[in-house]
């Protein structure tokens, strides 16, 4: 078991006051003051890479700054353990689980090792995702509150894996999901915590116009003509071909450009195949820009989103869809599919437009290009929606509230 020591943040909690108002920060402090002296423990499976580690790297120091005593532990395991948990992950997302029954024993053996190494003495213990879920076995001698934070969509799991995991989950005090659509019927309380973005990160902070201009030049994108952008890895579930088709319909009416930017093609054979299909669908259209970006492209993505006229997210299936959150935060009008967590963000005709088909997507884009004032208004309201619900500070507030709730019940 490894305890993670997070580097002190460059951004302090008061830096968020410029975006949220000082009253909101004062309220966070008021909530936290009621938890003074209480201890919190976060446990997950990695300290680097992936959305959970990224989120914990931001939340842990913010909670420390609010005077909570918080510790972040990472479980350890061999390659065989992580091969099994990767297979769990895919199976819980609806894929098939092909590993033998022996794999469940291996999973539990590693869990035992981690239990032996880990100290469970905090008031509130938050276990993230399935990998450390069986650590709940340690709660017998522990007075604290145990919460299982599930970051994945459990709506259609492979039942072999779920039937194995659910007896562990049932023993927690509560579970947290990112959307009501991702939850399951459980005998414990389930809470809704939306995922969040950090408005001060490279992906989302304000960037200088010169940098935006330079990045557009680098990719030969014309700033004078409308730019339609979908940011997502090259994955069939993100329907990049559908985006190309929608663009081709729009192109009959508007002299626009399409940017499809994302990663995942370099280290994923399927991503590579999808990228090839997208290139084929794009043909020789010089106004379609297909950008396979490396993982360290946060500023480039930020600049591309800010340069865009409209952000598209035409996924066939989606988790929460943080690229939508990022687009909304940048005050961009968003046209997106009504799947996964997207309808929670895009309230149709209020904070963006929803579509259910290629033709519908094209129609909504044409509508926005014809009505820039409406597009601007949707973008502004989308920004407010994110400010209110999907920023890292909202996430901190939800955790504080949950801990206060447990404290009151005790």
């Amino acid at each position: 078991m490894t305890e993670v020591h997070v580097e002190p943040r460059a951004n302090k909690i008061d830096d968020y006051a410029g975006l949220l108002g000082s009253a909101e920060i004062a309220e966070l402090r008021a909530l936290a003051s009621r938890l003074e002296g209480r201890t919190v423990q976060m446990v997950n499976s990695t300290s680097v890479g992936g959305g959970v580690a990224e989120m914990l790297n931001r939340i842990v120091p913010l909670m420390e700054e609010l005077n909570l005593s918080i510790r972040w532990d990472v479980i350890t395991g061999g390659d065989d353990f992580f091969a099994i948990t990767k297979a769990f992950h895919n199976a819980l997302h609806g894929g098939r689980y092909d590993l033998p029954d022996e794999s469940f024993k291996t999973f539990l053996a590693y869990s035992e090792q981690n239990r032996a190494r880990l100290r469970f003495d905090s008031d509130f213990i938050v276990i993230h995702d399935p990998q450390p879920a069986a650590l709940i076995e340690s709660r017998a001698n522990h007075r604290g509150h145990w919460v299982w934070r599930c970051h994945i969509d459990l709506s259609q799991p492979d039942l072999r894996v779920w039937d194995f995991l659910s007896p562990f989950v049932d023993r927690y005090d509560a579970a947290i999901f990112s959307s009501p659509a991702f939850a399951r019927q459980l005998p414990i309380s389930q809470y809704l915590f939306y995922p969040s973005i950090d408005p001060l990160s490279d992906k989302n902070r304000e960037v200088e116009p010169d940098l935006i201009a330079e990045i557009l030049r680098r990719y030969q994108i014309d700033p004078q003509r409308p730019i339609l952008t979908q940011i997502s890895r090259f994955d069939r579930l993100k329907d990049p071909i559908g985006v190309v088709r929608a663009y081709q319909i729009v192109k009959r009416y508007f002299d626009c450009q399409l940017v499809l930017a994302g990663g995942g093609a370099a280290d994923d054979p399927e991503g590579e195949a999808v990228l090839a299909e997208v290139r084929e669908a794009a043909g020789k259209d010089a106004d379609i820009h297909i950008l396979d970006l490396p993982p360290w492209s946060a500023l480039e993505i930020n600049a591309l989103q800010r340069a865009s006229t409209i952000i598209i997210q035409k996924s066939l299936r989606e988790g929460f869809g943080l690229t939508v959150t990022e687009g909304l935060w940048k005050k961009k009008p968003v046209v997106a599919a009504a799947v996964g967590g997207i309808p929670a963000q895009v309230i149709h005709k209020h904070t963006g437009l929803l579509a259910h088909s290629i033709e519908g997507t094209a129609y909504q884009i044409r509508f926005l290009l014809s009505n820039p004032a409406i597009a601007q208004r949707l973008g502004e309201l989308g920004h407010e929606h994110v400010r209110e619900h999907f920023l890292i500070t909202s996430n901190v507030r939800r955790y504080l509230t949950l801990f206060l709730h447990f404290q009151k019940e005790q």
Partner: protein
Amino acid sequence: MKANKPFQFVTASYLVRIGNQESVSLIELQHGIEGCSDASIFYHTFQSLGRHHFLTEGFSNDFAEWVFSACNRPALAEQLASLDIRDYVSLADLRGDLRRIVGDYCHSNPREAQQAAFEPFYFCETVEEEVPLGFEAWTLEEFRDGLKRLGHASVQFHFITSRLRLHLRSNDFSQWLAKELELKELGRRVDQIDVYTNTLDSIRTRMIELIEREPVQ
């Protein structure tokens, strides 16, 4: 003038508990409204307005929004949206009207009532945690200064959800102004501020403007 009892500024923080109940058609929505908890009716109406306070054009409650965007039934959505939470001091009455409107529609349109929506309606409910902000007001001036320090959740707590707590067609601010400072007219004007066409920020700004127009006491 100094109040006998100070105004205690409080913030509330809300958890959203996911219910084990969902509806995929209008008829199921009707059953859901009948069977869900009071905390769920509160979440999808009073709380929804606070959560979407920045939408000042045509957003009313989660039921109306779902009927419009997931069921494509604008006439029913309009009827549901026309319910004004300021008219209700009990969730039972609000539930009764929601049930009646959806039930009447399903009765008159049995085919539409059975049609599957684009996406389910998930019943959730609110868990509220109140926390005093640590400051209070004894005078109108202190009250105005306190308002300036309030975040959205506090304004929502004192101005919108207070109606259910008080069981009155009023709010914490108006009640205190009328009772403790004998400023009934100011309290009435504060209560008249429209929660549907104002954001929580503009509600607070309007209140401060009204207070600053008051003659010095």
